[in-house]
């Protein structure tokens, strides 16, 4: 079997992380392990690296697969081959309790938010601001981690945060933010942010495409035999597995 | 006129001298000689408070210093202006030119105008024969030239008393003559300039001093005119000291 290296940063949990027993796991990772089991042509090998380095690693051929809860966007699609969706995401706005002024993406004008670079949420805010030049959201770029951003929302430094709903639930298990509440976005808003799925990435070359096909075949089988659903339940307590139309 | 009364100084229990009394009249040229470690430098440095005396008082015509009493910065400056010092190691300001070295005290301490200060500085540099070198940095001068700048810097302050601590002992023998000649000229030209001088150049001391003090064992063991001290020392230690010196100088 050909050895294929998977690059992942080990965060965010629960998509990819190292558990208390020092074992790499997470939704993305376990899905790949399941595919590995039913794909005799390849053997997956997992490598952790800093997040930007995961993408750089796929560029440079160091990793053949990137697995880090990657969403879809056109720029990224130019550079990488996308697998079929692996995850049906759900997005949410997080605000302070008692703040009822932001219920959907349409309400963010004039409110402040800090967001990381290279994620779909940031692009969505940028797009919103382009569309509403008179009533822009106050976007602060940051390289702070998500919990810090949430803390800043709690203290009132920023008005809201935009993130994956399952991620927020996980973080909240740890921090128990008593002063925050989550508003899950409606389907229409989710579409504005992007395709609400996450994917595996492979390189845009012949080998990348071949691996991609193998991934897709594996995903189809896992969906059919219910493994995807099982893995999703394990990590999220709910079924976020994608359903092919 | 300098009056030193009951002056004592020790470094951590090591008494250098105690209860020292000395009067120096205006215009006197007092040479202090004595063995190494006797405390000659310490005494001289007490005169401008580079060392703080433990006890006693020092009085110049205009101002007095009493050991232990509080002294304001203004008083301190005034006291220090009674004397100026020429150092063994020259201690020129290396980042300043020869002219700037001489100007420093005039501008910063005496607060003269630039033009007044320059006039004085150039005059003193002419006196020591270095007016051509006004724009040199100390690093570009010979030892003898450096010491002559040191002398000019001291003279420029126009204080009543000139303190010289072995002003030639850091020089090669060739350059010693150069500096001693300058000093001799300065001393001879200014009859009212009081000078307190430490020197191992006994020939020079003999020529210029009006009074010689032999300093040892924490006090002035003997004093007198150069004639008396060199030709006819009474104290046994003075005799011993001078015999060693004579040997070294004339061998």
């Amino acid at each position, binding site marked *: 079997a050909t050895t294929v290296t998977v690059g992942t940063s080990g965060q965010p949990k629960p998509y990819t992380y190292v558990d208390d027993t020092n074992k790499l796991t997470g939704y993305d990772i376990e899905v790949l392990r399941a595919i590995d089991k039913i794909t005799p042509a390849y053997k997956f090998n997992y490598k952790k690296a800093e997040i930007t380095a995961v993408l750089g690693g796929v560029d440079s051929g160091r990793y053949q697969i990137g697995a880090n809860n990657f969403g879809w966007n056109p720029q990224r699609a130019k550079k990488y081959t996308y697998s079929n969706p692996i995850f049906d995401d759900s997005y949410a706005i997080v605000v302070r309790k008692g703040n009822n002024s932001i219920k959907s993406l349409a309400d963010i004008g004039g409110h402040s938010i800090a967001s990381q670079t290279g994620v779909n949420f940031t692009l969505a805010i940028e797009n919103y601001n382009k569309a509403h030049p008179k009533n822009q959201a106050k976007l602060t770029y940051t390289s702070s981690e998500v919990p810090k951003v949430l803390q800043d929302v709690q203290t009132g430094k920023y008005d809201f945060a935009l993130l994956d709903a399952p991620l927020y639930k996980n973080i909240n298990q740890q921090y128990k933010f008593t002063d925050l509440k989550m508003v899950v976005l409606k389907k229409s808003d989710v579409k504005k942010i992007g395709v609400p799925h996450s994917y595996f990435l492979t390189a845009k070359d012949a080998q990348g495409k071949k691996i991609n096909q193998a991934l897709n075949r594996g995903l189809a089988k896992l969906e059919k035999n219910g493994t995807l659903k099982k893995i999703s339940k394990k990590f999220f307590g709910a079924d976020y597995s994608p359903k092919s139309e | 006129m300098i009056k030193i009364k009951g002056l004592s100084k020790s470094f951590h229990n090591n008494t250098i001298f105690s209860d020292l009394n000395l009067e120096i009249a205006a215009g006197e040229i007092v040479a202090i000689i004595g063995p190494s470690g006797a405390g000659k430098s310490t005494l001289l440095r007490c005169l401008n408070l*580079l060392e703080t005396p433990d006890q006693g008082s020092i009085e110049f015509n205009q101002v007095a210093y009493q050991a232990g009493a509080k002294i304001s910065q203004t008083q301190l400056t005034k006291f220090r202006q009674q004397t100026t010092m020429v*150092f063994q190691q020259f201690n020129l300001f290396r980042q300043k030119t020869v002219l700037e070295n001489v100007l420093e005290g005039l501008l910063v301490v005496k607060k003269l105008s630039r033009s007044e200060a320059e006039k004085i500085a150039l005059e003193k540099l002419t006196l020591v*024969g*270095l007016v*051509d070198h006004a724009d*040199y940095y100390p690093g570009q001068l010979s030892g003898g030239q450096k010491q002559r700048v040191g002398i000019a810097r001291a003279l420029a302050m126009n204080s009543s008393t000139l303190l010289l601590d072995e002003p030639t002992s850091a020089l090669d023998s060739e350059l010693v003559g150069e500096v001693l000649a300058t000093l*001799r*000229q300065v001393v001879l030209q200014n009859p009212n300039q009081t000078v307190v001088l430490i020197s191992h150049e006994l020939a020079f001391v003999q020529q210029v001093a009006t009074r010689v003090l032999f300093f040892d064992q924490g006090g002035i063991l003997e004093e007198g005119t150069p004639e008396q001290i060199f030709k006819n020392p009474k104290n046994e230690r003075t005799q011993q000291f001078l015999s060693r010196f004579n040997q070294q100088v004339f061998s």
Partner: protein
Amino acid sequence: MAKVFDPQLVLRDIPKLLAYLPETLLITIISLVIGLILGLGIAMVKIHRVPVLDRLLAIFVSFTRGTPILVQLYVTYYGIPIVLQYANYYWGTHLNVNNVPGLLFVLVTFSLNEAAYNSENIRGALQAVDAGEIEAATALGETQWQILRRIIVPEAFVIALPTLGNALISLMKNTSLAFVASVVEMTARGQIIAGNDYRYFEVYLALAIIYWGLTIITEQLIRLVEKRITRFQQQQAPQPAKKVNFNLLKHPASVVKRGETLD
């Protein structure tokens, strides 16, 4: 073959990044100046062995030298709001740093870092200043403050400059970490650009070129300053045309009486 590397993008990125050069320079210069002043202060405390303060600053310097600056940024940027939150909660105070811009945290962190790193260097330089010159100035009647300003600091600067220069260059490169506190300077801008087109390698190359250029320029500036302030060492003045020679002592016969003029 996929275009894994696009040199054109490097060229396109450079001007985009340079637009944020002012931020980089602002952080660098302000931190440098405050760092130097604080560093001088710390050095003075150390030299004069000010009790207690002395020990506290030693711990501060040790911590700053002993931990990555990234961690220091975290500690100020994350830690201070947390401390205030707890204070507000337990003591009912209403302290709030939300309106304090991230830039301030960055400036504080970098200034303190710079102060800690430079303090040792400055202390060494201050203590290397020729004691004789200080005595000479004292004997002239200058005050301690005048001596510090006119004699000690200029000389110490000459001694400390090469090390200060290196610290400056490190500082300039370290500003790239300011993004942790949401301050957008060149490197942050680079990450934002790459966040849009996923061309990380190209951006990093562009950044490398810019930082390299900045370093070279800084080094040249330092060299210029060094040349200026060490004039007194370098310039080989023309040897004096005539050697002044007062040949008085050579002829002990020519004794002149006091008050007479020579020449």
